[in-house]
């Protein structure tokens, strides 16, 4: 799947946005710092995957599941992430369920929209999210 080394990079524009949102307003983030954080994030994904995979193997499962990832966080000493991750997962599952139902029966669309409103508004674009992201990436690289 990953044919070129760049395939293992995360989109710079998105990483930069996440950093900016985390730091106080007006902090200057050097270009080098940005690309370093981006590399660190890729390594984090690999490290987490490898840890999670160990838990799956211990349980004799071939598919990584949510529990494996959460256990990996504990093992990696990122316990602080566990609670927020569980919360996000709840919301995500609800969202996925909502989408499924909306697809099954379009008349029920109103329902799922109501659910989604509590959290975010542009949920309708959800399916196009990935393509959008990839495009954004190319447009805003290193600005």
């Amino acid at each position, binding site marked *: 799947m990953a044919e070129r080394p760049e395939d293992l990079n995360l989109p710079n524009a998105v990483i930069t946005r*996440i*950093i900016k949102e985390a730091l106080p307003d007006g902090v200057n983030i050097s270009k080098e710092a940005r690309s*370093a954080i981006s590399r660190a994030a890729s390594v984090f994904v690999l490290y987490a995957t490898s840890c999670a995979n160990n838990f799956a193997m211990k349980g004799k499962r071939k598919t990584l599941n949510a529990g494996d990832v959460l256990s990996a966080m504990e093992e990696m000493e990122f316990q602080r992430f566990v609670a*927020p991750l569980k919360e996000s*997962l709840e919301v995500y599952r609800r969202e996925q369920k909502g989408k499924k139902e909306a697809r099954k029966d379009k008349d029920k669309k109103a329902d799922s929209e109501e659910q989604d409103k509590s959290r975010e508004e542009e949920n309708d674009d959800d399916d196009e999210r990935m393509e959008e992201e990839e495009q954004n990436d190319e447009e805003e690289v290193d600005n």
Partner: protein
Amino acid sequence: MAARLSGGENRLVSLPLSRIRVIMKSSPEVSSINQDALFLTAKATELFVQYLATYSYKHGRGKEKNALTYSDLSHTAEECETFQFLADILPKKILASKYLKMLEKEKRDGEVGEDEEDENETVDEDVGSQDQRRIAS
């Protein structure tokens, strides 16, 4: 926290799941990943980016300059145990001139062993203990 909300920012996860999946699958021992695990990994990576950035900013030297720099990050990788796994990809930078002197010194030490006092004082003590070195000019 600086919340800069312009269109589409308020999503559950902003990193592209497709890309996260590619990175996860690049690990040869992984056969399959369910959707929840993929989502959680993406979200965790986001939290990680925030944490690494805020931690490095708080503990770094760029704070008075209102900046986050590479050396703040490499400092974090070196000093904080949780971020130790990043030490290899965030090596401390040293000047090329210093590095050359260190090489020279190593060479001399290898050959003679006693001849250590010569230009020692120009090389930082803590730099000498680093395994990974990146050369900056």
